[in-house]
């Protein structure tokens, strides 16, 4: 069991990931490869057919080229065809072969597109669903920009590999094998003259591009810096203007801009030599075939048709070989990207055991000697309390006192570790429940709620489609946000966020409360969720809520005493421990922290602001 868990966490080879992702596309890739072979075969047949026709006209007997002769024979062409009416049939045969080749070419490309795009879709879907199911702790440990970058740029690199590069490698290898498999038996000397250039062309592009990659990298970096200067300038435009530094900024940008262009121009010189030399090599290869052909022809070892085949095949393979050098010099990038994606895909996600409970959740909430630390920092120390079913618990405490952690533990955004106590609802340890089921029963309104860039109606519904418009409006009324929503031009259909309206902190909080009201879970947690709403509205919302949520077990976290005064019990948190506990009346009597905060806050309401901040 232990061994299994360890191997599960072992770093997989990046190519293993690719292999795994290819499941579902393998059949298509097989079709693509088979069609490619067939298309290449047709492409290779055409020059042979031309050779047959040319040589037949030239009086070479068909026995010297048995395979092609048989195919030509199918169209009723023998080596004496030119003397009969076979010319039109010859033309039709050429077109027929090209048609078949074209059909296979199309099949190859279509199958490849289906296979590769399918693979990329599965990769994207897996990344996204993985990210959705990551434990909350993972989310607090990562940088959004970094992960988005991986899910976009690295996926693009993988896509380029599975769509273009992988098949280019295959094509080049097949072409070279096919071509020289035919050419060597045809005429060894000429084939050798042509083949000698293949490794030269390949290594030339491979080595050059490998070397040039550092220059490409430098140019990319320079562009990144240029982008950063522009970005800083545009987003810091107020600072630039406030200090009157336009000239300086323009000069700074111009210098980096010129440097970046200069780098590319230098790189351009390198590339132009590379392209020129590549063309030269290709040309010299052609000349070598011409020279070799001439001497072979003099010796009687080659026909005109064969010579034409050599020229055609040669032009068919040289570009893929040049491309092969490029692809292999870039292959390293794909491995790096796959590795970076693998880190996301291999990270453990939230899972529930098979026997996780989905039985109705009800009863008292019980924190039993709960301790929790985040990294090495202890957050909660041996905290125990009970909330009776249907009652309200208030929690008072400063930032960092551990009150939010209590809320997060209760809906299992964090999980308690073994031996750190237990949280039970109705006597059942919450770790026994299915996470999703627990969260459907324990609703929480966060202090800084997130609104999706969708309509307000969808936001209030919490993306769920099971609520009617009337229900949504009612929930919004209870949380005092209905009137403000109605004031937007598109009311509940207004889109939130960059593409739509920006809501204030208080409005966001009230939308989040409407969400909770709508879901009406048996347990509700309000984590400082009215902090940006003024006192009166706060009171009105609470009154409306009390009407609605009778029988619901409620936990309210706040540093506003009036908000807590309606609670059945209040605990005061300090440095991860419970400092005071009791009913609001008892705590007011006792004269501890609660009382002092109460006095301070009441002094404002009594119009005695003299107490002063510090």
């Amino acid at each position: 069991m232990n061994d299994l868990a360890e191997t599960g966490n072992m770093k997989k080879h990046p190519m293993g990931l690719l292999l795994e992702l290819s499941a579902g596309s393998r059949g298509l890739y097989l079709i693509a490869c088979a069609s490619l072979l067939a298309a290449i075969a047709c492409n290779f047949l055409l020059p042979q057919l031309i050779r047959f026709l040319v040589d037949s006209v030239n009086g070479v007997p068909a026995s010297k080229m048995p395979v092609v002769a048989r195919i030509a024979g199918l169209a009723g062409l023998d080596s004496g065809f030119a003397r009969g009416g076979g010319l039109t049939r010859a033309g039709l045969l050429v077109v027929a072969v090209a048609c078949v080749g074209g059909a296979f070419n199309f099949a190859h490309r279509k199958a490849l597109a289906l296979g590769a795009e399918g693979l990329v879709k599965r990769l994207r879907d897996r990344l996204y669903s993985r990210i959705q199911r990551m434990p909350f702790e993972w989310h607090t440990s990562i940088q959004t920009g970094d992960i988005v970058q991986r899910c976009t740029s690295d996926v693009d690199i993988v896509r380029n590999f599975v769509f273009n590069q992988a098949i280019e490698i295959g094509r080049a290898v097949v072409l070279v094998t096919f071509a020289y498999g035919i050419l060597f038996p045809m005429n060894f000397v000429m084939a050798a003259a042509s083949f000698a250039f293949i490794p030269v062309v390949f290594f030339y592009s491979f080595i050059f591009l490998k070397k040039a990659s550092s220059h490409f990298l430098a140019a990319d970096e320079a562009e990144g810096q240029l982008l950063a200067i522009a970005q800083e300038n545009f987003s810091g435009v107020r600072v630039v203007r406030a200090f009157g530094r336009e000239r300086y900024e323009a000069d700074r940008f111009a210098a980096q801009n010129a440097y970046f262009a200069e780098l590319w121009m230098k790189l351009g010189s390198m590339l132009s030599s590379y392209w020129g030399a590549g063309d030269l090599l290709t040309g010299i290869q052609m000349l070598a075939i011409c020279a070799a052909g001439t001497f072979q022809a003099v010796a009687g070892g080659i026909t005109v048709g064969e010579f034409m085949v050599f020229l055609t095949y040669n032009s068919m393979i040289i570009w893929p070989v040049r491309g092969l050098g490029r692809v292999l010099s870039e292959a390293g990038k794909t491995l790096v990207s796959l590795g970076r994606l693998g880190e996301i895909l291999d990270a453990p996600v939230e899972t529930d055991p098979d026997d996780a409970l989905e039985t109705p959740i009800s009863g008292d909430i019980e924190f039993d000697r709960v301790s929790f630390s985040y990294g090495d920092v202890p957050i909660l120390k041996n905290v125990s309390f009970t909330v009776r079913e249907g009652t309200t618990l208030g929690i008072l405490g400063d930032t960092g006192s551990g009150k939010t952690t209590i809320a997060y533990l209760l809906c299992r955004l964090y999980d308690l570790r073994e031996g750190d106590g237990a949280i039970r609802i109705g006597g059942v340890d919450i770790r026994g429940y299915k996470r999703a089921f627990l969260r459907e029963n324990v609703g929480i309104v966060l202090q800084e709620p997130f609104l999706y860039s969708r309509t307000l109606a969808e936001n209030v519904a919490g993306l769920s489609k099971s609520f009617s418009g009337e229900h949504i409006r009612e929930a919004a009324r209870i949380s005092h946000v209905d009137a403000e929503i109605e004031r937007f031009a598109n009311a509940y259909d207004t889109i939130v966020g960059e593409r739509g309206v920006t809501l204030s902190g208080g409005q966001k909080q009230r939308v989040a409360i409407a969400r909770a009201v709508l879901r009406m879970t048996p347990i509700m947690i309000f984590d400082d969720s009215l902090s940006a709403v003024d006192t009166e509205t706060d009171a009105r919302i609470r009154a409306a809520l009390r009407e609605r949520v009778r029988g619901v077990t409620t936990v309210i976290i706040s540093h506003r005493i009036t908000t807590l005064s309606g609670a059945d019990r209040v605990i005061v948190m300090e440095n991860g421990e419970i400092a005071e506990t009791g009913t609001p009346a008892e705590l007011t009597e006792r004269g501890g922290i609660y009382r002092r905060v109460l006095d301070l806050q009441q002094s404002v309401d009594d119009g005695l602001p003299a107490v002063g901040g510090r």
Partner: protein
Amino acid sequence: MQYADETSGKRFDAGVWKTMLRFFVPHRKELVKVAFFMLICSVIDVMIPLYQKHIIDKFIFARSSGGIWFVIAAGVALMLVQLAATVIFTRAAIRVEMGFSRDLKKACFEHLQTLSLSYYNTTPVGYIIARVMSDTDKIGLMIAWGLVDFMWGLSYVLFAVTAMLTLSFRLGIWLAAMIPVMAVVTAWFQKRILSCNRTVRHTNSLITGAFNEGILGARTSKTLVAEDINIEEFGGLTGQMYRASVRGAVWSAAYTPLMLMFGAVSVAVIMARGLGYVAEGVMAFGTLSAMISYAINIFEPVQHLSNIFSEATSTQVNIERVDALLKREPEITDSPEVVRVYGDSFAPKRENWEPLRGDICFDDVTFKYPDGDEYVLEHFDLGVPAGTRVAIVGETGAGKSTLVNLVCRFYEPTSGRILIDGRDYRDRSQLWLRSNIGYVLQSPHLFSGTVRDNIRYGRPDASDEEIIEAAKLVSAHHIIEKLPEGLDSDVGEGGDRLSTGEKQLVSFARAVLTDPRIFVLDEATSSIDTETELLIQRAVSRVLAGRTSFLIAHRLSTIKMADLILAVRDGKIIERGTHSELLRKGGYYRQLYSMQYEIEAFRSID
């Protein structure tokens, strides 16, 4: 949508290209070079089949090697000329591409330095970046390589057709007739492929957005148990992406074989007719070979030629965007008289600047934002004598920055005047005013570079002693000393390597170094650790002494320091007075105050 990716279904429009004329001028020599040497390359490309014809007829068919080395040597010479021409034209093309986009970038960036803040407030940074960085790249690419493709395609087609017709008019006319058909088919496919590409790009940006939101909203999604809904909807997006990509790929998959088919039909015609001529002895084998080569090769230049127009048309969108940016007039400008005396932002005449005392007066100011339709100030009067501290309070998003924007002349009143030291501030230059204003933003913006670079941003000639003095004044000194390399520490992009509190202190020091008469402070709302916050509080009170100041305040201690408090709600100033006056009044300020008080009262009991 204002920022939507404009799709151009338009035709080629020379007028659009004319707007770029002045950017062509410096590169005209290189452009001529590109065209000329490209021409040489394409002549040689057309000569190669003729060269092969010669080899076939004179050597292979004749079975003779007499003079072969001379011909091979001539071939080598040809290849060397091509090498030289290729190197020259590609170098020139890259120089044009990079040079052109460099000049465009520079022009855009400089122009952006003069545009008013209203432009920046209504235009997302990403949109501006796309204009400056990608559109200019696309234009440079099109101008350099578009010319290459056009020259090569056109000259290859012309030369090859001439060669074919000369070799055999009867066969050549057949092949020449294929060319317009190929061009039309290419254009037809190109249109469809381009439209698929646009859908793909659009969907791709949606996918990026979904990833971003999926991560930022993770906590909320978990508590709402909305993971499955999110995953399902994301699957819808990737499905859309899949279909659009496959559709585009299928169009291309059909296009290439179809073009090759045209080649095959040409070859078939050549075989069917040409072989007859060869058998009759009126045509040489080499001619047949050359015709076949042309028939197969002509497809590529025709494709280039046909594509060039649709690419040029699609680049028109990029040109229009860049041109619109370059033509955009700044809304706030200094009048020519003002520039004559005070200079402009790029060349100030500091010797003519009067010192600024700091009396500010709003005289019957009415204002609405250029993109808004509601007046946020109407006949507003306010006198702020030098040295007064004005606090502006209100909820997030209530419009607290309006007054500050007006004081800094980021915006100007729609009607009415703002007087500085008794004179309308439009009578003096923007830079004069801003050189006298110290401005500390809520989320402090630092530039990548060292701490020193950042502190002396407003006064590049400041000595280290002055920098340290400014740092000490705002209590930033010991925090800077704690950094690994002190003043030389790199702050990272946007100051990312510093904490919010540290950034705040550095931006304070930056503002103080210029010794401004007016101070604008937009207080941070985000929680900073208590120690730093205390430092900042002390810095504020020290810095404000003797200066006219506007404080967008969130903390009681700051608010209480103010001589005058303005309460803002829904963009409008609804209450003004001193702290005690407003509390007694029991209105909106009182409400805000008690809310803030609850939080701070709690903290003060420790």
